[in-house]
C-alpha cells in the first residue's frame, strides 16, 4: 500500500514537472479550466436573478449541488480520470505496450502516468463554488457532514466506474475522444435537483446509472433534505463500479497492440 502511494506521488511529481516546463501554459490552462467550469453556475445564477428558479430549491441550494458536482469532478479528473485520455493516446500511438512491460497493474500505470494537473482548475472551481454556497445556507451539523462525506466518496466510486468504461472504449475504439461527450451528456444530469426530471428519469439516474450521486444526492444530504432512495443509489453505485471493471477487463483482453 505504501509502495502504491509512493508510486502515485512520484507520478504526480513527474506530471507536475512536465507541466511546469511550460509555466505560463500551466497557469493559463488552469485559469481557462476554471472559467469553463464557471459557465453552468453562472447560467444558474442568471436564471435565479431573472426571477425564474428550479422548483423547490433556492439559488444557493442549487449552486451547492453544482459545487459538489464540480468537486467530485475536480478530484477525479486530475487524480484518476486521466486514465481515459491516457488510454486513448497510448493505444493510438502504440505506447500502451510500454505499460504492459512494467511490473504493475496496467490500470494503476494508466492512472499514475495520467495525472492531469490542468484539471486542478476544476477542483479550485469546486472549492470556490462549494464554499460560497455553503456560506449562504444554514451551516450543517456534524451528522450531516459525515453522511455527506460518505456519499461524496461514493460519487468518486461512480466517477471511477465511468473512467473504467471510457478507458475500456479507448482500448478498442482507437483514437476516439467522443467518449467524453458520451460521459458529459449522461453525467450532467447529476448537477441538477432530481425532482425537476420525470419519474422515469429519476429512477434511471438514481438506480440504473447512478449519476445523481455525482452532485444531487450528497448535496441534498448536506442540506438536510436526503434524496429518496439514497440507499438504492449507493448500492447501484457499487454495482456500477463492479460492472465497469468487468467491462474494462473484457476490453483489455481484446487489446491487440499497435503494429510493429
Amino acid at each position, binding site marked *: 500500500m505504501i*509502495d502504491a502511494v*509512493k*508510486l502515485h*506521488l*512520484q*507520478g504526480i*511529481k*513527474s506530471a507536475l*514537472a*512536465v507541466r511546469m*516546463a*511550460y509555466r505560463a501554459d500551466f497557469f493559463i490552462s488552469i485559469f481557462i479550466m476554471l472559467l469553463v467550469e464557471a459557465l453552468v453556475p453562472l447560467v444558474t445564477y442568471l436564471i435565479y436573478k431573472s426571477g425564474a428558479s428550479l422548483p423547490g430549491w433556492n439559488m444557493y441550494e442549487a449552486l451547492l449541488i453544482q459545487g459538489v458536482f464540480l468537486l467530485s469532478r475536480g478530484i477525479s479528473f486530475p487524480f484518476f480520470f486521466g486514465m481515459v485520455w491516457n488510454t486513448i493516446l497510448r493505444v493510438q500511438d*502504440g*505506447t500502451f*505496450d*510500454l505499460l*504492459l*512491460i*512494467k*511490473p*504493475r*497493474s496496467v490500470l494503476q*500505470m494508466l492512472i*499514475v502516468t495520467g495525472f492531469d494537473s490542468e484539471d486542478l482548475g476544476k477542483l479550485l472551481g469546486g472549492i470556490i463554488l462549494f464554499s460560497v454556497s455553503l456560506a449562504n445556507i444554514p451551516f450543517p451539523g456534524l451528522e450531516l457532514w459525515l453522511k455527506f462525506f460518505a456519499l461524496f466518496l461514493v460519487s468518486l466510486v461512480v466517477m471511477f466506474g465511468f473512467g473504467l468504461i471510457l478507458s475500456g472504449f479507448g482500448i478498442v475504439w482507437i483514437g476516439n475522444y467522443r467518449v467524453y461527450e458520451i460521459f458529459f451528456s449522461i453525467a450532467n444530469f447529476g448537477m441538477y435537483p432530481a425532482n425537476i426530471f420525470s419519474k422515469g428519469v429519476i429512477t434511471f439516474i438514481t438506480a440504473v446509472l447512478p449519476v445523481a450521486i455525482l452532485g444531487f444526492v450528497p448535496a441534498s444530504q448536506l442540506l438536510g433534505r436526503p434524496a429518496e432512495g439514497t440507499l438504492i443509489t449507493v448500492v447501484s453505485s457499487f454495482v456500477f463500479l463492479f460492472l465497469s471493471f468487468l467491462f474494462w477487463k473484457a476490453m483489455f483482453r481484446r487489446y*491487440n*497492440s499497435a*503494429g*510493429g
Partner: protein
Amino acid sequence: MIINVENLKKTFKSYERGNTLREAVASLFVRKTKLVEAVKGISFSIDKGELVGFLGPNGAGKSTTLKILTGILFPTSGNVDIMGYTPWKDRKKYVARIGAVFGQKSQLLWDIPPLDAFNLNKAIYSIPDSEFNKKLNFMVELLEVQNVVKKPTRLLSLGERMKCEFIMAMLHSPEIVFLDEPTIGLDVIAKEKIREFILEMNKQGITFILTTHDLGDIEQLAKRVIVINHGDLIFDNTIEALRNHLGTKKLVSVSTQNPLPKFDVPGVLVKNKLSDYNAELELDVNTMGLNQFIDYINKNSTINDLTLQELPIEEVIKNLYSI
C-alpha cells in the same frame, strides 16, 4: 536454458474496408474479416547469457514474436517458458525481471530530464535507494552521459536519448533484455557506444534478444541469429553458419590487361561489370575451383589484380528473405 518457445502461433483478425467510397460506406455496416497468420508455429530456445539477433523483413512476424515474449500479446497457441514464467500469464512477476528498449517508442518523458523518468522507474520497480544510485552511476559513467541526464529530454540528440533509454530499461537489473531496433537512426559514433555498452552488459551475464534491420548490429554483437519470414522460423544458427549459408560463394574483384572473357561457365555470376577490363563476380568455389577460375581468365586474358572476399552478409539475408 532461459527461454524455451514451442510451436508458437499468433493469428490476428483484420478487417477489409475496401478503397472506394461505396466499399467504405458498406464497411460501416458489414465488414469482411480476414485471418492473418503472423506467427505460424515457431520453436527455439535460448541459453542464459546468449546474445541472439532476431532478423526478418518488415511484416515477417518478429515484432509479434517479441511482443509475445515480453508479455504484451497473448499467442493463439503454443508454449513459452522464460525463467519459469509464462509471460502473458505471470506478467507482473515476469516483467520485473526483464527489460526492453524500443528504438521507436520512448520510455522517457519528453519535457523533463531523463533523471526524472529514472526516478519514476525507481518507484515503479521499487528499487532501493542504494541499489538505484549504484546502478545509475555505473551506467551513466559507462555511457558517458553525466551532464545529459539532467537536461530536458527534448533537448537531447537521438544518440543521447537512446543511451538514456538503455539506462531506463536496465536500472532494475533485468536478466533478459529485449532490444527492438536500438540503433535506428543513430550516427556511427553513437552506434559504436551503444554496441560497446550491450557487449559489456552481456559480459556481465545479461541475455539479449536483438531485433534489428542494421546488419552491422548483428555482425558486431550477435553470436547467434534467428531469421523469421512469413511467420516461419527459417534460420537458427551461428553468425558463421549464416555467412556460409549460401555455400562456398565468394565475391571476386578482377582486373585484366586484355578484355575480360565471357563468363558463361557454371559457378561464375557477373554481379557488376565495371568495364571490359574490370568486373565484380560471384564465384562458387565448389563448382569452379579457384585455380580453375584463375586459369580460365589467364587463358583468355592476363590478370592484373584479383581480390577475394566473403559474400557480404546482406547478400545472405537477401537470399533468406526471398525464400
